[in-house]
């Protein structure tokens, strides 16, 4: 029985109609977009909404007092409210940034970390949750990386025995390579027991599951709008209120201050403290519309549909000879499949698939330590799916992979 047919969770055929790009042909074949972990496609509600913004609401919010600026301000604040509600936070805990990368960098500059402190990241991380912390080594911060086992699961023992000097535990909610969904609730609890703060990289989870910062126990949480149906250029850093008074400035300039005298500067409170200069108002507005779209479907339905896609994806490739599939057995996975065709470089697999209309990413996926040291690979091909993908697309994909492995691989 097909998931799309069952239609209770989510009507993929109906959803696809909202995504104009999905009717595009690529190399003479219908586009099969399996690269949503890199960036999702955008529904017409978001695309048209951004146009509406420029045609009806465009002004610099928070500054001018005229009517149009007022409307822009209302739209900008409404977007913040929607984001806050989406992750069960308060609006003044939501900082708009460019993307997850900027959010984590902001945190690395703004948290009061000093010489002798320890930051605990993990082997499963995207470069953007590794490099900002490695940079802190220059000021004498120690950075540890929690290991992963053969099933690409984090070594939870490490979190149970965090050293006393641990100030921050930073971890991804979902891996962008293996799709592993980490038990961030447990990790947060263990970090708090050890007296450390917790930052969650939710870049891959926010598009796919209900996020509740209070339930997780996150002190900071970062995600990107462009991976969850929103436009490029807008992302979010959630900062728990209890941290606000301890945090240092990041970018300084217009709108992040209360008063400026050349010998005395008074800053605004978070979030404006971290929103110096004119913001990506279009982006925030677009992200708000993306959240509306997801809410209409319901994140529970998104999650259930993703699960069905993931199961079918793994089931379909399991029987294909000549593949290395990098997924464990725990079943706690997002709709991401990393694999290699034996004897072929991942770029060449992506190339052959592209010729048939399949869009997949290949290479290191900005997670070189995990892929080289743990997967022992020089890259992977990655299929990453979302609500507009179908079981039928997965079937075609599996058939094509089988073809490629037989024709070009070394079985």
């Amino acid at each position, binding site marked *: 029985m097909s998931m799309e047919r069952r239609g209770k969770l989510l009507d993929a055929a109906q959803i696809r109609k909202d995504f104009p790009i999905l009717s595009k042909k690529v190399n003479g074949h219908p586009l099969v977009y399996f690269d949503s972990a890199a960036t999702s496609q955008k529904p017409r509600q978001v695309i048209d909404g951004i146009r509406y913004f420029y045609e009806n609401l465009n002004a610099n919010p928070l500054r001018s007092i005229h009517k149009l600026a007022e409307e822009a301000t209302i739209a900008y604040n409404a977007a913040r409210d929607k984001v806050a509600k989406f992750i069960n936070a308060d609006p003044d805990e939501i900082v708009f940034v460019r993307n997850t990368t900027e959010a984590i960098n902001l945190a690395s500059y703004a948290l009061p970390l000093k010489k002798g402190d320890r930051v605990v990241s993990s082997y499963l991380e995207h470069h953007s949750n590794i490099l900002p912390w490695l940079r802190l080594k220059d000021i004498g911060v120690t950075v540890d990386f929690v290991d992963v086992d053969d099933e690409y699961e984090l070594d939870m023992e490490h979190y149970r025995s965090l050293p006393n000097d641990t100030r921050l535990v930073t971890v991804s909610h979902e891996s962008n390579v293996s799709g592993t969904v980490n038990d961030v609730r447990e990790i947060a609890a263990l970090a708090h027991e050890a007296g450390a703060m917790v930052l969650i990289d939710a870049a891959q989870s926010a598009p796919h599951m209900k996020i509740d910062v209070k339930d997780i126990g996150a002190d900071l949480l970062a995600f990107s709008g462009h991976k969850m149906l929103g436009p490029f250029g807008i992302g979010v850093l959630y900062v728990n209120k209890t941290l606000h008074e301890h945090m240092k400035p990041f970018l300084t300039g217009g709108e992040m201050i209360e008063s400026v005298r050349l010998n005395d500067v008074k800053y605004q409170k978070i979030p404006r403290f971290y929103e110096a200069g004119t913001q990506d108002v279009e982006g925030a507005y677009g992200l708000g519309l993306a959240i509306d779209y997801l809410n209409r479907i319901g994140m529970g339905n998104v999650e259930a549909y993703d699960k069905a896609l993931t199961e079918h994806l793994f089931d379909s490739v399991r029987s294909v000879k000549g593949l290395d599939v990098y997924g464990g057995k725990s079943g706690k996975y997002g709709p991401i499949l990393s694999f290699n065709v034996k004897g072929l*470089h991942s770029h*060449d697999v992506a*190339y052959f698939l592209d010729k048939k209309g399949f869009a997949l990413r290949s*290479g290191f996926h900005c997670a070189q330590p995990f892929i080289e040291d743990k997967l022992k*690979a*020089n890259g992977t091909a990655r299929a990453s799916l979302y609500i507009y993908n179908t079981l039928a697309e997965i079937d075609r994909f599996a058939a094509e992979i089988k073809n490629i492995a037989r024709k*070009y691989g070394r079985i």
Partner: protein
Amino acid sequence: MDESKLYELMDEYRNPPHLGKPKDYDALEEGSSASCGDRFTVYLKLSGGTVKSADFEGSGCVISTVCMSRVCGAISGKTKEQIRSMDIKDVKKLIGIDQISASRISCAMLGLETIKKALADKKRM
């Protein structure tokens, strides 16, 4: 002609003529691509300012590997100056195609770039 022709070169990809570490060499250089995972080591035998022979180890995609090997073949007998002035046009000529997509240019150029690095005047850096 476009890069799809390169995929007719699977045999050359599997057994590139210049693959293997030579017994002796005068210069060694490693090249890798941050996003792809391609990684090559080139070994050059030099005589004065001329490359006598070039070989490589490592692995990459079809495009980077075939280009790597063919560039190795093409540079023996060439002076450092001649090699330094080579560019993507020369690589395209070597592999007999004139269209490489923007995202694959770095694949095609990895070999030549690595060889150029090996020939760079290190003292001046």
